[in-house]
C-alpha cells in the first residue's frame, strides 16, 4: 500500500492520470448524477408533479393483489416510472428519494469510518508500545465483529423513533472502521521510519505537528483509495439491511427495501424488481469505477484488489 518514495505529490500526477482514465470519467459522471439526483430529489419530484407518499388506489387492480393497471408497472404521462404495486405511490418520486437514502447513508458511513479509522490508526502508529498494543487489540476486535450480524442485532433493538438514516450510517461506520484503522496504522508505522519524520523531530517539531504535516499527507493517497472502495461496500450493506427490513422506516423509500418488497411481486410486476435493481447496480458500478480510477492514479504500486 505504501506509495513509492519516488511518488510525486498526489495532486499533479494523479489528476493528469485521472483525466486520461476513461473508466474513471464515465464512473464520475454517473456517480455525480446520482449524487445530484439525491440532493435535488425534492426538486425532481416536484418537477414530476408527484410526491412519494400519495396513494393512487385507482391505478391498482385490487382483485389481483394490487398490481398496477397497465404495462410496465403502469407507466404513464404523470407517472414516468409507473406506480408501486400495493400502494400506487409514484415510483419516480420514490426512486429519487431512494437515491437520497442510499447515497446519503453510504457517504455518511464512509466519512465516519475514515474519521474513526484514521484517528485510531494514526494514534496507534505514533503512540508508544503500550498505546499501540492496546489500540491494536481494539482494532482486532472491530475486525472480528461479523458486521452484518451485529448490524442486524443492533438495528433491531435500538428505539424505532431514532433518526433512521443517521442511525444506519453510524452503525455501519462503528462496525466497519477496522479496515481503515489497520491501514492507517500500517502506513503510519512505515511513514514514521522515514527520515523526513526524523528530520522534523530533530528540528524540534511536536508530535501533533509531525502528525499533521508529515504523516497525514502521506496517508491521503492510500486512505482516499480505500475509502473510495468503502463507499460502494457501505451502500451494499445499507441496501442489504433495508432488504432485511431493519433499514430506513416507511414511508421513507430506499432501494434495498424496494427490492425486498419486490421479491413478492417479481412475477406479477417484474418492472418493479428491475427498476431499483438496475439503479442500485448502476450507482455501485459508477462508484467502483471511480474508486478503481483513483487507485490506479494514486498508488500504481498497489495492484491487488482491495476487499
Amino acid at each position, binding site marked *: 500500500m505504501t506509495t513509492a518514495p519516488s511518488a510525486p505529490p498526489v495532486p499533479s500526477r494523479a489528476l493528469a492520470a485521472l483525466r486520461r482514465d476513461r473508466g474513471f470519467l464515465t464512473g464520475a459522471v454517473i456517480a455525480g448524477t446520482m449524487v445530484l439526483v439525491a440532493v435535488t430529489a425534492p426538486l425532481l419530484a416536484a418537477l414530476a408533479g408527484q410526491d412519494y*407518499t400519495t*396513494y393512487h388506489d385507482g391505478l391498482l387492480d*385490487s382483485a389481483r393483489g394490487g398490481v398496477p393497471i397497465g404495462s410496465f408497472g403502469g407507466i404513464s404521462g404523470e407517472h414516468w416510472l409507473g406506480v408501486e404495486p*400495493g*400502494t400506487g405511490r409514484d415510483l419516480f418520486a420514490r426512486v429519487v428519494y431512494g437515491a437520497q437514502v442510499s447515497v446519503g447513508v453510504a457517504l455518511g458511513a464512509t466519512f465516519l469510518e475514515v474519521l474513526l479509522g484514521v484517528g485510531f490508526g494514526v494514534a496507534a502508529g505514533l503512540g508508544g508500545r503500550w498505546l499501540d498494543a492496546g489500540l491494536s487489540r481494539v482494532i482486532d476486535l472491530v475486525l472480528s465483529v461479523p458486521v452484518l450480524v451485529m448490524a442486524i442485532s443492533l438495528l433491531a433493538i435500538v428505539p*424505532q423513533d431514532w433518526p433512521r438514516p443517521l442511525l444506519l450510517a453510524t452503525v455501519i461506520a462503528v462496525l466497519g472502521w477496522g479496515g481503515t484503522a489497520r491501514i492507517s496504522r500500517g502506513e503510519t508505522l512505515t511513514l514514521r521510519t522515514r527520515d523526513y519524520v526524523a528530520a522534523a523531530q530533530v528540528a524540534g517539531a511536536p508530535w501533533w505537528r509531525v502528525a499533521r504535516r508529515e504523516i497525514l499527507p502521506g496517508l491521503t493517497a492510500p486512505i482516499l483509495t480505500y475509502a473510495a472502495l468503502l463507499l460502494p461496500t457501505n451502500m451494499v450493506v445499507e441496501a442489504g439491511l433495508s432488504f432485511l*427490513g431493519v433499514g430506513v422506516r*416507511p*414511508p421513507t423509500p430506499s432501494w434495498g427495501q424496494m427490492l425486498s418488497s419486490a421479491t413478492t411481486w417479481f412475477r406479477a410486476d417484474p418492472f418493479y424488481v428491475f427498476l431499483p435493481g438496475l439503479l442500485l447496480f448502476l450507482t455501485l458500478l459508477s462508484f467502483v469505477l471511480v474508486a478503481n480510477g483513483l487507485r490506479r492514479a494514486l498508488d500504481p504500486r498497489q495492484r491487488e484488489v482491495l476487499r
Partner: protein
Amino acid sequence: MRRLVPIVLAATVLLAGCQDGGGGDSTASNAAFDPATCQGGTLTVLNQGGITHLDPARLYTSGGGNVPSLLFRTLTTRNRQPGEAGTKPAPDLATDLGTPSDGAKTWTYHLRDGVAFEDGTPITSADVKYGIERSFAPELPGGAPYLRDWLKDAAGYQGPYKQPDGIKSIETPDAKTIVFKLSKPEGDFPFLATATQFAPVPKAKDTGTEYEKHPISSGPYRVESYEPKKSLVLVRNTHWSTKIDELRYACPDRIEVTSGLDSAVINQRLVTGAGPDAAAVTTDAVVGPEQLAQLGTGSELDKRVTRGEFPSTTYLAFNTKKAPFDNPKVREALSYAINRTSVVNALGGSAVVGASTTFLPPQKALGHQAYDYFPAGEGGNPEKAKQVLAEAGLSNLTIELAHQNDDSEGVGPKVASAIQEAFKQAGVTVKLTAIDSATYRDVTGKPATQPGLALATWGADWPSGGPFLIPIFDGRQIITAGGNFNLAQYNDSEVNAEIDAINALTDPAEAAARWGALDAKLGKLALVLPLTHEKDVYLYGKNVKNAYADGWRGQLDLARISVK
C-alpha cells in the same frame, strides 16, 4: 423479510372460518372421494411459521388447531364441516358437548369407551385433568388464558410441578367422568373445550419442557421426528381407529410438515406441483399477487383453491382516556376520513381481505349485523371529516399512530402509511411510531404505556361473539398491569351486565343474535375504527382430494383430505 410470526399470532392468523361453503370449490377433485377407501400416500405440508412448541399445554389453537389435532384429541373439537355446520363444536374424547348445571357454572363430561394413547394405555379423566393442570405451569407458558379466569379459584395455581395436589375446581369422580366448576356462567364452555389444553397427558410420561420432543399422541398419528419450526413427520398411530373417532378420516399414511419457507416460494411450489409438491398443501401461506394474477382466469389453478374466512378484524384502537381521542367528534371524523381501499391494497388486495365497517366480521356464527354509521365510502370522505372536526373546533390536528415495525401481523408499516396518507387528506397530520413487533402487545396492553391511537387486530379463538367482544369491550377486563385488550378502556355497567347475561346462555343461536345487537350498539360510539376482515385463499397440490375450507378456520382440514 421477517418471516417468523410470534406465537400469539401463529394461533390467530392460522385460523380461518368458512363463509361460502368452500367445499364447492373442491368438488372437481372431490368426485372420487370416499372416506372408507381414501387411505394411503404421503401428504406434504409447506408452511411459513412452524410449530414452536409441540406441547398441548403450550399450543395456542382454536378448535384444536390443524396439525395439533392430528395428535391431540380434546374433550370436544370442531365439527370439521364446510360452511355453517363447521362453526359448531362436536364431541371428541367426550360422549357429548357436556352437561351444564348450576346455570352453566358447572360442566360435566364423560369419556367415550376405547380411547387410548399411542402406547395402548387407556385414556382416563385423570389424564385430561393433568393435561389442563400442566398448562398452568410457568415452565410451560403460551397456552390459551381462559381457563385461568373461568375455573373457580385457579388463577394462582402454579402447575403440578410446584403444586402436585392439583386444581380443586376440576373433579374426576371416576376414570370416565370429569367435572369443571366455574366462577361464573360460561355458555361457551363446549367451544373452549376444543383447545389443546383439554388434551390428555399421561402423568407417567410427562417430562416437563422435554415432553414436546415426543408428546404422547391420542389422535390418528404419532410423532416420528420433530424439529421445532423446521420439520415434523407424522406416521399412523396404530392404537387409533375410525371406530373410536368419526370426525377424523386420517387418509394419508404419512404427513411431512416443512416450516420456515417463504410464502412466495410455497405458493410457487404449489403452482408448479413438481414431485412431492403435487400432494402438498399449506395451512398458513395465503396466495400472493403472483397467483392472484392467474386466479379467476379460468386457468387450471382455479380448481386448486380453497376460499374461507377466519373471524378476525384489523382495526384502529382509540384510547378514549387520552386526548384528543376522548372527544367522540375526533373519533367520528377519523372514521369518515379513513380510506379502506388503500388499507385493503396494503394488506394484499380485495381477494385476501375485505373492507369492514363493523367490528364483528361478517359471519353468521358470530351474529354479525351490518352497519356503517360513519360512511367513508370506497376512498374515504375527507370533506365530511374536515367538517366534523371544524364543528368540534379542531383544525390541523396532529396525532401519533402506533404500529408494529414489520408487516407479518398485518398491523405494520404498510397499513400505517396507508392510514397516514388517508388522514392527511382530511388535514390530520399523523406521526408514525413503529414499535418492535415482539413487544407491541406489551406496550399497547398496558394502559400506562398505551398510545392514543394504535393499529390492532383481533381474532376469535372460536366462532362465537363472546371471545370477540368480551376482551375488547368488557369494562371489567381492563387489566392495568398489562395484557389488556380493552384498548378503548371503555367501562359501562350496562354493557357489562348484558355480557354476563349472554354468557349464561347455552343456546349458541340465541347468543349470536344478542352479540350482534351488542356490537351494533357499541358501533355508534366509534370506540374502535374497523378497517378490514380477513379472507383466506389457499392453493393445494394437484393430487389432493376432498380439500375444502372447514367452517371453523377457513383452511382445508388435514384430518380429512386425501392424497391417494
